[in-house]
């Protein structure tokens, strides 16, 4: 008897009981449901929720694997084991098994905690509310480990995931009903609850926090650190990386968001699979470029001088803003979340443009929150239904006018 038939039997056995949603969920997660319709004509679409979610996860896997290599690379670079790869993508210093396993053992627990806690809560709610488990957490669970620092304590992640899934999603009625992107809710919770673990120059490099504690305890070691580019720019320092490094992703940052190259590839994959909205991705980039250009113009006009605390980020070339921080990742994987984004095409342009625009605005004017894209997307999530409302109303008005002209 194989697993499939066993699950069939279990499912039948528990049908109608309290635990039924849990068994159904396991079953639909692994196999196609065995229910068939008995009457009427039906259209079967291949792109159900499960397949959509899996496609997004596939687009993120390269980022995850790169993140593992990068975590090890940043660690070894910081302790002085290896030399900087200086922008060469196929450098033998970067793609080593040593690098990979340092990252692997650090990041796999993050993935497991994220899925374990998140899916556990989804199962629990499905059983209490007596509905089927939805696949909504599959993508969130993969996004979460990619947008946190590598050294985040696991219990903090667990608390944040529980908060994000319950308050960010389940209270609104579960998958498809949430106003805010759950993954970003989780990150925002971590950011405001435990700011020392979400910013600064230690948490981005594996082992840096531990090393600091050892030194404080009297160990004779050199301190290691790795500040993100946004972090150092916000303090008015020069970024220590070339633009090529930023594009390739050999920079400190959250686990999966450093490599702009792989994010663009993932984004193209989503666009061609017709799952991600190219309108949102494009208009976000456009919004960021416009805001970046405005700031560059202000600097060129001499309004802001080097003495200003905004100078560092304002004088950053507009195109570099697209490469640093989590902007690319947020735009491609989180702004395009079909539940929380605008639904109308015109609305998507406005929604995306404002995300890009506000991201750069927050980056520059609020050095306390070096990464603006998280807050920008959450803010626009709130406004997305309003944008849709006005787009639809505008369309209705236009058509009413046409009607009047005809009848008159």
């Amino acid at each position: 008897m194989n697993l499939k038939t066993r699950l069939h039997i279990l499912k039948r056995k528990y049908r109608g009981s309290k635990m039924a949603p849990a068994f159904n969920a396991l079953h639909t997660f692994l196999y196609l449901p065995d229910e068939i319709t008995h009457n009427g004509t039906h259209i079967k679409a291949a792109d159900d929720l499960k397949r959509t979610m899996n496609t997004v996860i596939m687009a993120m896997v390269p980022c995850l694997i790169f993140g593992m290599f990068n975590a090890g690379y940043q660690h070894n670079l910081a302790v002085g084991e290896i030399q900087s790869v200086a922008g060469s993508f196929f450098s033998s210093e970067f793609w080593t098994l040593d690098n990979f396993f340092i990252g692997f053992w650090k990041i796999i627990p993050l993935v497991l905690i994220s899925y374990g806690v998140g899916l556990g809560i989804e199962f629990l709610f499905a059983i209490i509310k007596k509905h089927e488990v939805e696949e909504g957490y599959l993508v969130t669970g993969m996004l979460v480990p990619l947008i946190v620092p590598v050294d985040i304590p696991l219990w903090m992640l667990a608390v944040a995931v529980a908060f994000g899934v319950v308050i960010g999603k389940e209270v609104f009625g579960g998958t498809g009903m949430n106003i805010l992107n759950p993954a970003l809710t989780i990150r925002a919770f971590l950011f405001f609850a435990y700011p020392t673990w979400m910013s600064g120059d230690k948490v981005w490099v594996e082992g840096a926090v531990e090393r600091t504690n050892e030194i404080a305890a009297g160990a004779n070691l050199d301190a290691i650190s790795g500040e993100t580019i946004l972090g150092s720019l916000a303090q008015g320092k020069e970024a220590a990386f070339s633009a090529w490094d930023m594009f390739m992703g050999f920079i400190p940052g959250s686990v999966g968001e450093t490599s702009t190259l792989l994010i663009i590839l993932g984004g193209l994959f989503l666009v061609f699979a017709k799952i991600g909205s190219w309108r949102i991705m494009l208009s976000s980039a456009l919004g960021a470029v416009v805001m970046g250009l405005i700031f560059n113009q202000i600097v060129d006009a001499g309004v802001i001088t080097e003495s200003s605390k905004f100078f560092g980020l304002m004088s950053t070339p507009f195109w570099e803003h697209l490469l640093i921080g989590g902007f690319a990742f947020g735009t491609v994987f989180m702004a395009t979340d079909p539940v929380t984004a605008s639904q109308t095409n015109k609305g998507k342009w406005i929604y995306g443009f404002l995300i890009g625009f506000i991201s750069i605005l927050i980056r520059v004017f609020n050095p306390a929150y070096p990464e603006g894209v998280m807050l920008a997307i959450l803010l626009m999530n709130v406004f997305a239904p309003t944008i849709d409302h006005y787009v639809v109303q505008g369309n209705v008005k236009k058509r009413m006018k046409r009607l009047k002209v005809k009848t008159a």
Partner: protein
Amino acid sequence: MGLLSKKDTKLITDPLADNNPITIQVLGICSALAITAQLKASIVMAVSVMAVLGIGNVVISLMRNIIPSKIRIIVQLVVVAALVIIVDQVLKAYSYELSKTLSVFVGLIITNCIIMGRFEAFALANGPWRSFLDGIGNAAGYGLILIIVGFFRELLGSGTLLGFKVLGDPIEKTGLYAIGYENNGFMLLSPMALIVVGIIIWVQRSRNSALIED
């Protein structure tokens, strides 16, 4: 019959649960969000509101037949303002530090919707004894939620209760902090107070289906 008849007892117990001013009527939210970061401040606020609402309800109830209805709001405001100033002065005299923590929010008891709400809805139509009970009951219901929210916010946000370090010392790394626990800074921000109040409402309504509206 004891001190309180059955109907009178209901005046006190109803606002504690099924007709709670914060969780059911959703009044007085502003102060519930603003001053609940510490348990001590929550308790003082609860007591202050209880004093103002209890005495205020009696005063309004005594005057209810002589207040011209056109200017009743102004009369009510004068009564609350007078009582709030007394409370404020007492706090300043006997616990200056605390009055600084509560700062403007003692003064803002005047604008607390619960107080004007009870004056309008109850004291203007009932005798002084029943009005007194109603005031105490509603203030207690308000204070109860304040204290629950303050308890969780101070415990999880600062790791203390009434200033005592119940979870250990975060700097010396004792107690829970020795195994890597850290205070949740989000708890000290007002949005989290709103979420805690929301969770209380959620729990209350899921236990009592009569409270669920469509």
